[in-house]
């Protein structure tokens, strides 16, 4: 079990897959999430947990992507890309979110 993406993961391919497999539609281009999909930025999942949800999502609108659609290597690439999302500024530094 990896807490981080394995060294063989390809972040650039993960970025390509994030668009090609339409992940961004529900999860947002920065993984911010929304009503249609969970937040991915700063995920606390490890790779195994991430893969489990992709293969067998809980009852929701999340498509169940099996290996025919996303191989284990591609899941690892996606995971590596998701981990590259920048951390947001704290709310205190964003005036419009203070009140």
């Amino acid at each position, binding site marked *: 079990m990896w807490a981080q993406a394995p060294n063989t993961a390809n972040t650039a391919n993960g970025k390509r897959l994030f668009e090609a497999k339409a992940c961004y539609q529900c999860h947002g281009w920065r993984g911010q999430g929304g009503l*249609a999909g969970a937040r991915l930025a700063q995920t606390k999942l490890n790779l195994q947990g991430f893969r489990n949800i992709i293969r067998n999502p809980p009852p929701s609108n999340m498509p169940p992507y099996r290996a025919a659609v996303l191989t284990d290597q591609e899941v690892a690439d996606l995971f590596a890309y998701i981990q590259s999302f920048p951390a947001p500024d704290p709310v205190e530094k964003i005036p*419009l979110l203070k009140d």
Partner: protein
Amino acid sequence: MTPINRFGMESQSVMKPGAKIVTISSLELNHKSNYQDFGRYVEADVAITGDAEATLPALIEEVKRALTSDRKRALQERGRKVAEANEQSRKQHRELAAIAWDASPISTARLAAEIWAQVKNEDWSLVSWDRMMSSWPTRLWNFSKHYQFIGTHGGSGIGYGLPAAVGAALANKKHGRLTINIQTDGDLCYAPGVLWTAAHHQIPLLNIMHNNRAYHEERMYIALLGAKYDRSPETSDIGTALKGPNIDYASVAKGFGLYSEGPIENPNDLGPAIKRAIERVKKGEPVLLDVVTQPR
């Protein structure tokens, strides 16, 4: 019953087991031939067809009279807990809104926050459904008057939004309210001619495009359905994406006689553009800002 997925075939009750449900609504009078009406009734123990707005004041007084002091204390305690949960929830929403704050396409949270900053001191009325933008107005704005939210659509996917917004803006005009329509792009494509109606009759209306350049609801549905058969979603943009060419909604609106700006892609340009637009609306005009946004 609350549907738990897009297919609408599975649902689960969110009610406490054994709770009695009594409804007072005129909804039953509105059911006609829309397939979405049938089989989607609330599972009420007693369904009363009536005017909820007219009924509620008297009902509240009657409930107050029936309360014992023990029940009053219990309700106060519940109210305290709900207020705490609400405050915690709003704090969490603000933290989530901070993610992708500077992104382009512009995040829907940023869009909602920028609009709120410009309208919060006005007598405003949001006349569009906000679910397509992850309900960020509901999550970040302070709704305190009944006319500040028009509710959901009467028919999804048939271009309800813009004509409904123009109608609501007409109703708001005599009250001098600032009417805000956060307009989805695909919805506008059904009946854009109503922009001319707004211009012709000088109906003050702030249209702000939530231009995510696709019918994402349909694309999500295709991805979900295809995955059940191990089909990749890589071609799910065929017939669902509104690109190649991108639609220039500012030019569309200008052609119908509206003041317009856009496409706005830099989130830092949003605030000043909204401010300029509101100045025009206050003079009695409909305007349109085209904002390029994230899908939800």
